[in-house]
């Protein structure tokens, strides 16, 4: 048996190349974001640069309408997450607590919807939104994100709900609580952490979505962050890379921190619900 210290060193050596490759884009982001503009295209290319230009961020914010895209992203992600949860909580509760006709069927239907990526349906969805008059309307994204995330939220919530013992609610009924009272006073307080975690993952999913946002949002004031940043790169003769990277830093770092903090819940949720 290897000692823990020796094992730790060995493991970190094995993981090192992967960690370097994972951190590399972050380094690229930061180093480019704070570099003076005229040091972007130098030859030979180099990591070094003369000064930290934090003003890049302020410049970028104004020039690229970052604030507008940020608000769009926030609006879409928050509303879509709320909608997905409001529809998923009763469904997940029913799936976790009741036996009913068609339950297995519904489970498989949800699985199917999770497998259907937006890209395969994007043309059909675009035509649907045309019919509904929702192209260039952020609410088209709200509706589609809610729908595409629902399989995940129901799945996640159900697996957590299953871990809340049913006999707690039964005990409440015996104590004289109605179904509604036991839901509000016993079940929901215990389910709040699960709901918060699920909400945050749904938020991140919506925050990061690209294909639908690219397709439905045709005018630049409706862009969400991924599309806004993509639009500064695609089809341009000259790309202001320092602004692009400053934008990606602002758009990704808060989400990455949030995610890092919560990733162990995801692992737990997967272990609970995914494969079993």
């Amino acid at each position, binding site marked *: 048996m290897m000692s823990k210290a020796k094992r730790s060193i060995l493991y970190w050596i094995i993981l090192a190349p992967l960690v370097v490759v994972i951190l590399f884009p972050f380094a690229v982001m930061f180093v480019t974001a704070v570099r003076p503009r005229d040091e972007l295209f130098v030859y030979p290319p180099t990591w070094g640069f003369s000064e930290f230009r934090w003003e890049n961020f302020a410049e970028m914010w104004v020039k690229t309408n970052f604030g507008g895209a940020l608000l769009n992203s926030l609006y879409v992600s928050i509303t879509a997450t709320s909608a997905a949860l409001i529809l998923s909580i009763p469904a997940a509760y029913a799936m976790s607590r*009741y036996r009913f006709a068609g339950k297995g069927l519904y489970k498989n239907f949800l699985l199917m919807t999770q497998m259907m990526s937006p*890209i395969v349906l994007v043309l059909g969805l675009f035509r649907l939104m045309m019919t509904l008059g929702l192209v260039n309307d952020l609410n088209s994204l709200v509706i589609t994100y809610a729908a595409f995330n629902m399989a995940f939220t129901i799945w996640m919530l159900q697996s957590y709900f299953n871990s809340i013992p049913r006999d707690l609610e039964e005990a409440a009924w015996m104590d004289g609580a109605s179904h509604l009272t036991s839901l509000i006073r016993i079940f929901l307080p215990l389910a709040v952490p699960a709901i918060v975690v699920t909400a945050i993952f749904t938020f991140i999913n919506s925050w990061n979505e690209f294909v639908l946002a690219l397709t439905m949002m045709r005018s630049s004031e409706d862009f969400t962050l991924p599309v806004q940043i993509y639009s500064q790169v695609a089809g341009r003769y000259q790309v202001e890379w320092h602004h692009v990277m400053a934008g990606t830093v602002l758009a990704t770092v808060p989400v*990455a921190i949030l995610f890092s903090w919560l990733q162990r819940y995801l692992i737990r949720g997967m272990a609970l619900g995914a494969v*079993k």
Partner: protein
Amino acid sequence: MAQSGLSALCLLPVATAWTLETMAKKAHISIPMLMVLPSLLLATGIIGYPILDLAWTSMQEVSRFGKLQGFVGWENFAEVFGDPLFYASLWRTGIWTGAVVAGTLLISMPVAMILNDDFYGRGLARVLVMLPWSISLTMTAVVWRWALNGRSGLLNATLMQMGVINEPIEWLAEASTAFTVEILVGILVSIPFTTTILLGGLSSMPQDAYEAAVVDGATGWHQFRYITLPLMKPFINIAIVLNVIYVFNSLPIIWVMTEGGPANGTDILVTYLYKLAFRFGQLGKASAISLIMFGVLLVFTLLYVVLLSRNEADAAPEDEVKGHDE
């Protein structure tokens, strides 16, 4: 704060559930079915309807602006199957999917085993390995597009400063190198999800089986070969199928880095489909490709459902005990 706000939010579904209950009694539908109904309606509307619409459109002649101009039967499909670009994209989709999924699994398995073991800094290692998951594929691809810049990209900078190369490499200018790095980025972003699934499996491994094996004289390799691998098989299968589905569908990496170029040299089905639909306005043909992809996905999804239900069948005796409570 966030919690109380959220629990207020949670009351909404409860309230709807409550009104639903009274409705249920009138309509003779069971309460749980009513609780499921709203989510079912949304999913059917947003995911089910477009499929039907695509099926309909694929049989029509469609104008650039999406006007249906009459039924043409299988003509769109015939056009797709007569298109060399379709076959090239299909072939490349196969390579893309196969290479990314295989590469991801080969890296994720040892990584998951390391992360499942106890060592100093495991928490940090887990956070680091999961990190790419939190960032949208679009952003990752944008950053790599810059990092791989043929003149001033920082990958070239790194390699030149380390003395590996003397001249910068135009990574994305040539289809073969571009496609290769796209596959590598694809692998990188698929590792967190795969590792998570495998970790879920590893953490449910029975510890006593390993102890028994050690007592029986099994070496580390034996333990891996005869205990870990067989017990992990369901998890590995599911990781493969899910990854196949996700990678097969993944647009942003290739779209952002090369848009299928240069000269359609990195086009896979999704990028080709997107170009047909939203660049070239060939909507009928695009619908036909969508439908073909839908068929492929359906096959993989069914495969996944079968795998899942087989796992469930294995776990059934336990469930039975829970079900009957006595």
